[in-house]
């Protein structure tokens, strides 16, 4: 081929590689059993070069796996040893410190061979239905209580399935058929990626991915460094306090910005908790990288070279670098606050980019519904025990030029599920799921509204929740004169308050009432245009009284 057209050719191949990994991710979404994968996109998929460096990653999926998976493949190669990697192998782990932060996420890595030669790897990660132990909740004191731990090992060796491993898993998890189904789905997802890569290499007559890798890395590195060079070099700090489990957690970051990269150091952050809200460093890296990339280089695809300039450190044993055997099951709560913490520092050098703080941590409700002993079901219905997982989002922070998003997940990439679909899966009724009026922080730009969720057990049933809610004591703060969003509340319809974290019962005759936090405002409320205030009142986002109070209209 003439040299003239090589650049265009590489661009086309790069685009193709991204569609290969999208296809890989789609296979996972379609076949997975875990609610958080199929409904909420809690997964990731990527392709790597033969040394384990990430070439491309699916944009389907949630940021918790960004960086985390990028680093994971190197760990696999190191643990297994290069001489131990063969065609037909599939590798597995759910090691929170080498995967994506908790036992519920399994990472699969598959080497890709072409005519007997290793050309690259495919990796994917997904949250599975169950890993045994206490189940998905914050109440464990050590990771041993949180479920079965599978170190990096072979799920299949030269095409032969590791039946002993499957047998052990089968006897250690709830819903074993579904969990095994999820694992097969992960393996299939990598296999689909491999097949598509082979087609692509045939079509483009490639023997290896080396030249394409160099093109991707050079372009990504140059584009990222160009963005960083435009930033004012220096150190910028920020801190934020959130509720934690039993005592407040202080999160502190210092960003060292230079033309070579951005380093985030979390020195000064609170120490490890005795309960499962701790975060392994790999997950801190993921959400820190996400926050920085959103603000500094959003268009550049994720790969080894575009992520490389973003580095992270945190003192060992702090809550954002929790060490084994710390419990880590609900590491997402603090993980979701990392972008807010980081963006607060970014706002000091890019005041027109960083949004105000938001509700940020998802309000996932894990519900265990049980029949009451001796009770009767309603006519046409039956008594049943069910585990139900619901995702709910509060308001996001106001942006420098736009109001915050109402009841929309940020930074998490998940979707909420249909109430009708949720009610088909278990004996509960959601009586209310709508905007929480007045909860967005006032400002020139208003914070996003939270939402109110009310749930009651169906006739003959009662339920328990595993609460993992935050921003009840510490609302989202506004920026540049914007006010705080409303704090969250957790209680019953009779006014009883409940704890925001931990397992608790909702009696049969009572309704659980969750008021989710709103996002912080941006800029001084007195600068909000009249027309916007009037529109908010017309739509009922705020009441006339609140308009008067917040905006002095």
């Amino acid at each position, binding site marked *: 081929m003439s040299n003239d057209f090589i650049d265009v050719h590489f661009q086309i191949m790069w685009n193709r590689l991204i569609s290969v990994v999208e296809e890989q991710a789609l296979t996972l979404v*379609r076949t997975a059993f875990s609610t958080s994968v199929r409904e909420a996109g809690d997964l990731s998929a990527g392709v790597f070069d033969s040394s384990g460096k990430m070439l491309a990653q699916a944009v389907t999926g949630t940021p918790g796996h960004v960086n985390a998976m990028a680093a994971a493949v190197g760990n696999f190669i190191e643990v297994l040893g290069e001489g131990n990697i063969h065609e037909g192998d599939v590798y597995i782990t759910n090691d929170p410190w080498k995967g994506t932060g908790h036992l519920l996420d399994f990472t699969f890595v598959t080497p890709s061979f072409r005519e007997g030669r290793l050309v690259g790897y495919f990796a994917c990660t997904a949250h599975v239905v169950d890993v045994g132990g206490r189940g998905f909740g914050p109440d464990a004191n050590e990771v041993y209580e949180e479920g079965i731990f599978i170190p990096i090992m072979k799920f299949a060796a030269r095409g032969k399935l590791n039946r002993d491993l499957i047998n052990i898993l089968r006897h250690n998890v709830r819903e074993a058929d579904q969990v095994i189904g999820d694992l097969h789905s992960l393996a299939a997802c990598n296999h689909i990626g491999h097949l598509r890569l082979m087609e692509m290499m045939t079509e483009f007559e490639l023997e290896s991915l080396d030249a394409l890798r160099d093109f991707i890395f050079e372009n990504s590195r140059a584009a990222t460094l160009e963005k960083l060079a435009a930033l004012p070099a220096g150190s910028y700090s920020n801190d934020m306090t959130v509720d934690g489990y039993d005592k407040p957690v202080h999160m502190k970051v210092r960003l060292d910005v230079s033309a070579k990269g951005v380093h985030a150091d979390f020195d000064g952050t609170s120490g490890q908790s005795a309960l499962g809200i701790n975060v392994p460093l790999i997950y801190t890296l993921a959400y820190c990288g996400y926050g920085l990339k959103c603000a500094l280089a959003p268009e550049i695809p994720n790969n080894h070279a575009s992520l490389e300039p973003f580095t992270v450190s945190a003192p060992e044993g702090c809550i954002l670098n929790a060490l084994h055997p710390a419990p880590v099951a609900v590491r997402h709560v603090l993980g979701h606050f990392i972008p807010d913490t980081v963006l607060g520092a970014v706002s000091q050098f890019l005041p027109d980019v960083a949004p105000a703080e938001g509700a940020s941590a998802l309000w996932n409700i894990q519900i265990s519904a049980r029949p009451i002993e001796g009770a009767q079901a309603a006519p*046409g219905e039956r008594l049943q025990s069910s585990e139900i997982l619901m995702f709910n989002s509060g308001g996001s922070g106001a942006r420098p030029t736009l109001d915050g998003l109402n009841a929309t997940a940020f930074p998490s990439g998940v979707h909420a599920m249909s109430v009708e679909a949720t009610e088909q899966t278990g004996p509960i009724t959601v009586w209310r799921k709508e905007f929480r009026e007045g909860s967005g922080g006032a400002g020139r730009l208003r914070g996003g509204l939270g939402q109110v969720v009310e749930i009651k057990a169906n006739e003959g049933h009662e339920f328990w929740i595993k609460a993992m809610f935050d921003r009840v004591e510490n609302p989202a703060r506004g920026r540049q004169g914007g006010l705080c969003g409303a704090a969250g509340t957790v209680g019953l319809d009779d006014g009883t308050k409940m704890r925001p974290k931990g397992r608790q019962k909702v009696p049969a005759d009572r309704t659980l009432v969750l008021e989710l936090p709103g996002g912080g405002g941006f800029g001084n409320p007195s600068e909000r245009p009249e027309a916007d205030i009037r529109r908010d009142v017309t739509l009922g986002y705020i009441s006339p009284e609140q308009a008067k109070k917040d905006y002095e209209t």
Partner: protein
Amino acid sequence: MSYAGKQVRVGVDIGGTFTDVAMEIGTELHSTKVLTNYTAPEQAILDGLQRVAKQAGIETGDIDLVIHGTTLATNVLIERRGAKTAFLTTRGFRDVIEMRTENRFEQYDLNIVLPAPLIARDSRYVVAGRIGASGRELAPLDEAAVARFACDVAAKGYESIAVGFVHSYVNPAHEERAREIIAEHAPDLSVSISSEVSPQMREFERFNTVCANAFVKPLIASYLNRLVVRLAEIGAGCPVYMIHSGGGLISVDTAASFPVRLLESGPAGGAIYAADVAARHGLRQILSYDMGGTTAKICLVEDFTPKTARTFEVARTYRFKKGSGMPISIPVIEMVEIGAGGGSLAHVDGMRQIRVGPESAGSEPGPACYGRGGDKPAVTDADLVLGKLDPDNFAGGDIKLTTQSSVDALLAQVGQKLGMNAEKAAVGVVEVVDESMAAAARVHAVENGKELGDFTMIAYGGAAPLHANRLCEKLGINALLIPPGAGVGSAIGFLRAPFGYEAVRGAYMKLSQYNAEWVDEVLGGLEAESVRVARDGAGDVPLEIERKAYMRYVGQGWEISVVLPNDGLGVDGASQLRGLFEAEYIRLFGNPLEGLDVEVMNWSVKAASRVAAVTRVDPVAKAGTAPVKQTRQIFDAKEVGYLAASVINRSDMSPGIAVSGPAAIVERETTTIVTAAYEAILQSDGCLLIQKKGAMA
């Protein structure tokens, strides 16, 4: 009526730019394109009809049948030009259509803007009353509140009402009662209820669908009334039928009640057109490819039937990105639509990568080469620079193209930023747009568990024949058909559509709790509904019935549709259903899973009249080679360089005449590019069959 003993049938497709009219008198085809008239869409139809009648030498009174499809309903939604509409819903669920899925469809954009809800919050009302998941009433409907609502919205000048209650797909009693009360207190208001418009589970999609229906209903109803009246005025008092999104025909009355069913009816016609060509040629696996000015649409047609789905998304607001539009849950011909057309504009992004679309030059100012003030390079500009278009013979010579303007625009927007000359920039633009269409086709095939290698492509729409052959190379497709009349393909497709209607309902059942009586009741109800609507147009002709179940393993999130046996499900229905499901699961994902129950989420029944049998066209053997009177330099992407290509007029070819690539086969509405690796042979029905050299039978 009729002309010289032959039936006169007319298909009319109103698109964004053009209104296409295709008239068939027996087997003879006449067609025309007129500009769409936005203020009075029916006027363009009348103009087009009169023009084409004159061309054919008949009177408008000779017309026996008009079949109409339109993007009007889609445009009303995109442009938010519908009626003043109020939405009445279950207390506690006022914000369902605004909360959407609580998700951002673009992860890395801090300044993302979510699409505004179709009905603003102050026009959304709630009322007490609740149906549970099993269909049992948990709280009675507050009838007094419904009455107050009706009086209130009537007083406020609302024109249309949507009603959507939680779980109404299981038990519609509250919705039906609410409609009665509204009719009593506000008889002038048009009312749409979700259990009738779209009785499927998932409140966001169903509520949005009923809101969309209510929103477009007054406008579409009044347009359809005017159309029928004005057609009668010019003597065309013949029956008028509408084509719906699922590709069947319905009466004007049904369309006026459920105008949401008209969304995407134009593209549906295109898919039927491709299916008809496929049937003529006996091709069981087709990739239908339609490329116009602003978008490209890709659809799978197997066994002469376009693939259908239960939901789709309209009015995407963010680069055609999934999730950025409005979900509509009605049966639809499934296709992927991407922002890639002849007018799509190219630019260079922050990564120094060439990007094309979705912004389009439209018809004003048009691509730079039109010389109407456009200074950004469109795909057409790149095609021109690469020699695929003849600047002096575009649109039959009506529009003179200026190659220098294309060169300038490509250099300014692409070449100079990447250090490329105009030709190289043009190659980049065309390869990027071809690759993005190929990627869309590949993903679509994968989603359906298909390998495209065995498919034949059928291409139509103004820009498709320029790109189709290259797309085949990228997709590993060996055969391509470019039918005659490709420029008005959708309108021709309308004439091939059956009378038909598909009714879908959410009705949940685990196979372990299989209840034969209940299944019969669900399917029986759906069949009665679909037959009633189909009979509305089809009269007494025999109907074909197709039943489907949408199933998954308990715990999964994505359902697989399975066609049920025609003789019904017997006592062992559960094991039959499981067998059908697992066969399809294996086809899609490789292995069935052990130990898991299977659940049915939705059921559907389609009733349709039989399509007239097509005359099979046998492949024509090569009988000679077209004489080459002219050649021009055309870029061949696979050969990576310019080649001397034959230029042939399609009208000079007769059946059996072959043209070897590289070649450009020119006709009035479009040009077909044959790449160096392929050869074209004209078939007896006027289709160009383009096959890979050496792969020919």
